[in-house]
């Protein structure tokens, strides 16, 4: 029996959500949040998320069912960001010295012992209760440090997943996270004691 055209349309556009929509729905706020942090404006974040989702939909047939969809779509988001104007600028201006030291897990190259003031943890803790100060410190992070911190702390991803998304070794993930936290700590310490010199 031949179906009438509108009945055939029904089978396509019915109220049932597609597998893609079911997978992407819960991740939409996370994608937007990370996109906003990276692109630093709502307009750019909207463009970035839309482009990411459309790319993901077009390439959905290449996604292997049962594998990590979150890592897959965040990788598309990240690659889309890198090819955007803001992403290209970030890549040009940030020196990824941590990659030169990917095997150096001491984490002391950028922040030698003594650069962090161990004597004032209470001040740092007070600063941590101040969301605005913490967000300001995060805003100061270079994109490679910010993205790794967002994926680890906000998206609660494992180092292995982050390594897949960012296409870097796990050692580099570990090193970047440590440097990102050291940088935040330094910013918070400086903010809490503007007149005090940081020991070097």
């Amino acid at each position, binding site marked *: 029996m*031949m179906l*009438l*055209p*509108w009945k*055939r*349309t*029904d089978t*396509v*556009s*019915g*109220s049932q*959500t*597609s597998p*893609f*929509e079911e997978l992407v*729905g*819960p991740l*939409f*706020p996370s994608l*937007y*949040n990370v996109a*906003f*942090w990276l692109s630093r404006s*709502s307009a750019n*974040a909207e463009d970035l*998320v*839309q482009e990411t*989702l*459309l790319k993901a*939909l*077009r390439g959905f047939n290449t996604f292997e069912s049962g594998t990590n969809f979150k890592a897959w779509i965040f990788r598309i988001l990240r690659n889309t960001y890198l090819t955007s104007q803001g992403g290209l600028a970030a890549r040009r201006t940030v020196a990824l010295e941590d990659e030169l030291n990917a095997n150096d*897990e*001491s*984490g*002391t190259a950028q922040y030698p*012992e003594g650069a962090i003031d*161990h004597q004032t*943890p209470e001040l740092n*803790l007070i600063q*941590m209760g101040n*969301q605005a100060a*913490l*967000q300001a410190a*995060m805003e100061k992070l270079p994109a490679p440090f910010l993205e790794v*911190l*967002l994926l*680890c*702390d*906000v998206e*609660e991803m494992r*180092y292995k997943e982050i390594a897949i998304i960012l296409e870097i070794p796990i050692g580099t993930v*570990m*090193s970047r*996270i*440590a*440097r990102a*936290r*050291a940088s*935040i*700590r330094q910013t918070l310490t400086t903010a809490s004691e503007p007149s005090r010199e940081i020991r070097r």
Partner: protein
Amino acid sequence: MNDHLSAPILSALADGELSADQLANASHHLSQCPLCTGDALYHSLLKSATAKAGQRYMPTPNLRARVALQIRELSIQNSQDIDSARPIARGSGFYGWAAAAALLLLSVGIALVQYGWNRSATASAQYAALATEACDQHIANLAGNSPPEVISSDRHTVKPWFQGKLPFSFNLPENLPSGTTLDGANLTYLHGRPTAQLLYSVGKHRASVYLQKRSDDKMANGHSTDHSGFHVLDFRSRDIDGIAVSDVDSPRLSDLVSLIARAQE
């Protein structure tokens, strides 16, 4: 004692990413070094604070609707491209009906998708916030090393202590798993709601089990997650919502939680 734990090791410790050997070495060092213990606590608290501060931007409903529409249109287009490969007998009289039906279904689809996204995102954000707050309190409790408000391993002492302090009552299991003891309890607040914090020792590990009056929120039952290296496990009974936090291995925490959940029935 000269070799303090490096920043990447302290970070990985907070993230629960150390291997068994690394964890054993780090634990050994922390037991002897107050400086690194302070740093480890700082990293853990910084991780929690960053998680909260990082959840900053929410998409507008307009954006959700627009993107949902684009996705739906593209999906339809893709499906029609596939269909167009087949021979189709189209009755021109049906074009109007087809367009109207497609529009109607599209609207319903968008509304359902948007509703589903909103509900799922809200529930997931609420759960993440609750888990974070429970973890923070547990960590603060460990760091403060202050005694519980009621110190007793006797459930007949701990439960009555909450009389008049909480707008609900709960049961405590008679028998606990081997190696697990009740240390006491605190009256606390989670998400601004009065909560009983039960403190247990599981071997050398400490566990906090938070009990609240069951809320109307849609909360997952038996949801298990890792947060800042701690295992977080929740349960729901007819009258009580519970959430447990500990760094003990998941099966042992799960045993304790199952017994407490069963005691509420």
